[in-house]
């Protein structure tokens, strides 16, 4: 299987491979990918390999600080922790890739702040005991694949392997916001995943909740926020007939997948929506094994979805039409939410 996929990559990326260094990236996995999101790491490495992209993991990287660092220490903890990673990420690479949307966001924010403040650069230098290097280009995996893989080449190679699936692209918050720092295509309507997903033969209709929030890191401290926000994302996707939600963020994944059972329990729903990492979907399209890609490591089984692939069942009826299946003429509710915390 893996030998096969190497050939795939050679075919897709023949011209790119000729340029030395261009498709070798410094790799920052981040804590989640070495912990609960191990399958994201595995699938990213495998897919990259199959696509002829070399990943060199940064040696001895540290936590980016995630959300708590910038929030609770006004003393620049949110800059200094990622600054060390930026500092050691270079090593002959022009760009680094951080598949975790949270890390990506922290790293880019830190870079932005370092660029704008002499004082911060001095502080970083004091801690690092040498002038801080922070200019390396920071990419997310969506951007990396968009840059390295042409939809035409991918389509030719995968021969519509994922035909019949309708995949909801889910970007969440951290990839795209704040817009002026992230510069991630169109922050109001991000579209970067779509061309490659379509190239796999899958359908990818407009998903109105693509940049709504899943509830972020509130899972541990204020679970009701996550359950409520994630429920809506999943419900809308299900209502529109999507087969799976595709994400590029371990935190989103955790909220949408791992907590889907909690959502069902809390709200009496029976949601059963597979949530896949973008790298897993591309890996599947490239013919990599679902075990290797860790599809199984998810709480919500993707078995039905896997069964669909290859059968070419013409695809599910797209739910873009708003014709009601049954005439549910329930009176519209105005759900005014009381101001006080419920």
């Amino acid at each position: 299987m893996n030998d096969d996929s190497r050939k795939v990559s050679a075919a897709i990326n023949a011209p790119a491979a000729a340029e030395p260094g261009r498709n070798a990236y410094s790799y920052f996995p981040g804590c989640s990918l070495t912990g609960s999101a191990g399958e994201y790491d595995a699938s990213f490495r495998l897919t990259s390999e199959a696509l002829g992209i070399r990943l060199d993991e940064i040696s001895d990287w540290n936590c980016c600080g995630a959300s708590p660092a910038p929030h609770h220490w006004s003393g620049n903890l949110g800059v200094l922790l990622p600054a060390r990673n930026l500092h050691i990420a270079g090593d002959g690479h022009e760009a680094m890739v951080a598949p975790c949307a949270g890390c990506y966001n922290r790293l880019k924010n830190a870079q932005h702040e370092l660029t704008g403040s002499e004082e911060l650069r001095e502080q970083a230098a004091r801690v690092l005991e040498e002038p801080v290097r922070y200019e390396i280009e920071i990419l997310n995996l969506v951007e990396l694949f968009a840059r390295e893989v042409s939809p035409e080449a991918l389509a030719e190679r995968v021969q519509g392997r994922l035909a019949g699936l309708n995949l909801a692209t889910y970007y969440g918050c951290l990839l795209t916001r704040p817009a002026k720092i992230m510069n991630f295509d169109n922050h109001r309507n991000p579209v970067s995943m779509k061309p490659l997903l379509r190239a796999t033969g899958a359908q990818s209709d407009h998903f109105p909740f693509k940049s709504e929030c899943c509830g972020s890191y509130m899972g541990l401290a204020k679970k009701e926020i996550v359950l409520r926000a994630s429920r809506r994302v999943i419900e809308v996707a299900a209502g529109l007939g999507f087969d799976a939600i595709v994400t590029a963020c371990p935190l989103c994944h955790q909220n949408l997948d791992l907590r889907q059972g909690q959502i069902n329990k809390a709200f009496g729903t029976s949601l059963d929506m597979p949530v896949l990492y973008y790298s897993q979907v591309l890996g599947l399209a490239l013919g990599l094994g679902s075990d290797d890609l860790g599809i199984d490591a998810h709480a919500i089984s993707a078995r039905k979805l896997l069964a669909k692939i290859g059968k070419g069942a013409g695809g599910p009826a797209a739910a873009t039409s708003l014709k009601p299946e049954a005439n549910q003429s329930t009176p519209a509710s105005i759900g005014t939410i009381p101001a006080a915390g419920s």
Partner: protein
Amino acid sequence: MAICVSSTVADGAAVVAEIERRSGERVSACYQCGRCTSTCTGSFAFDYPPHRIMRLLQLGQVDEVLNSRTAQLCFDCMTCSTRCPMNIDVANVIEHAKMIADELGIEGDEKDIRLFRLAFLQNVRRHGRLHEARLLTWINLRSFKPFNDLELVPLILRKKKIHIVPPRIRNRRLIHRIFREVNGGDES
């Protein structure tokens, strides 16, 4: 800058000015259309939805803002900022209100979220990386909710989503130095 917190409009103005200075946003640009609130992810758990936070700041009522659940709970998803028709980064304003509340030692009622942030950073400070299992345990014990998320544990174990041994980086000294730097020498 020393900040005197008071509910009087006159004194509130200084805090609002400080929030504006740090965030680079103008609260007076808000015309209360409420679009931030229309899709705010967490507002059902907040006491003031984002447009009311902006309004309170416009009126200099900083006491309400700094002590609000909103300031403590807003998790910076920035949905409001993306949609604001006046290009105000509302989340950024709330973020700075939160930081000023912290500096002033305002604890508020939402202990769990503070605990989470604290636990997270202690965890990182010790290992250089986050150890998720330890974070979960620590929070559950400290928040006196030992059974929170317990139903997930078998699932997590079955799906091999957890490491029992904490990950550690080699250069932990540097991490300690960073924490010392931001804590003004105090490493705790």
